[in-house]
């Protein structure tokens, strides 16, 4: 392993992480909810596709999910009022993105969370269940990139 010092951005990474943590804390202390993107999006989608199918979700809970998602979607536009968006470089083509999206969609529903729900919120709560999920998705991420970049 060699460190890529040119790509290393410790300060923006740390500052961004602090903002993400603040957002999760704001949601739990302010509204009593877990800031898990997979759970919020999945819950909204489930209610949309099968309304009333045993989903104990009030209109208020649904509205809270939708405005949270709206906040995420609007964030790049707010950012652009102040500074240009940082460059985003893709690592896969269209087919790769579709396969990746499907895997992520199935995986986060099956495992009940993603980087935010199990990662940020779960680890902060000291949940062993979340730690197990984090270790499995991090491990799979490391192995997948190893195979894609160094084996294939």
């Amino acid at each position, binding site marked *: 392993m060699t460190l890529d010092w040119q790509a*290393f951005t410790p300060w923006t990474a740390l500052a961004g*992480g602090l*903002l993400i943590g603040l957002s*999760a804390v704001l949601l739990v202390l302010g509204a*009593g909810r877990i800031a898990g993107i997979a759970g919020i999006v999945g819950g909204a989608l489930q209610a949309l596709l099968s309304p009333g199918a045993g989903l104990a979700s009030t209109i208020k809970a649904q509205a809270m999910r939708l405005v949270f998602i709206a906040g995420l979607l609007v964030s790049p536009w707010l950012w652009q009022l102040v500074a240009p968006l*940082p460059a985003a470089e893709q690592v896969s083509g269209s087919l790769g*993105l579709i396969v990746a999206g499907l895997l992520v969609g199935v*995986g986060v529903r099956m495992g009940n969370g993603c980087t935010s729900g199990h990662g940020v919120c779960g680890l902060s709560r000291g949940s062993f269940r979340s730690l*197990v999920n984090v270790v499995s998705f991090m491990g799979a991420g490391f192995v997948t*990139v190893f195979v894609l970049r160094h084996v294939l």
Partner: protein
Amino acid sequence: MSLFISALSGLVFGLGLILSGMANPAKVSGFLDLAGAWDPSLALVMGGAVGVGLIGFALAKRRRSAWNGDAIDLPTSTVIDRRLLIGGLLFGAGWGIGGYCPGPALVSAGSGSSAGLLFVGAMLAGMALHDRLFARR
């Protein structure tokens, strides 16, 4: 109040994802590439977020209700099963291939990125597929 807090939380979350580099798939890939030239930045993203989270969730556990009056709804499940593990593995594989996890994908889609939109479309299809085929009955 509830809606304002939720919207603000989503907004701050998104800004954090952009600032941290999580919304750049190449940055995520650089972090996951242990065998290549490794970019450790994302470890600091998680470290910073969990650092703040540890304090916040410790406070949340001691409170009975949130500022908006709702009960603080913390997950209660401690089940470690095949679904938790396989779900994590599938998610991690997709994260490695595309460089997107759900939050950054939504932020990218919000900015109008065609890659972000394509990924989010596939992700929603994957979620719906799961609920149709693999949901616990």
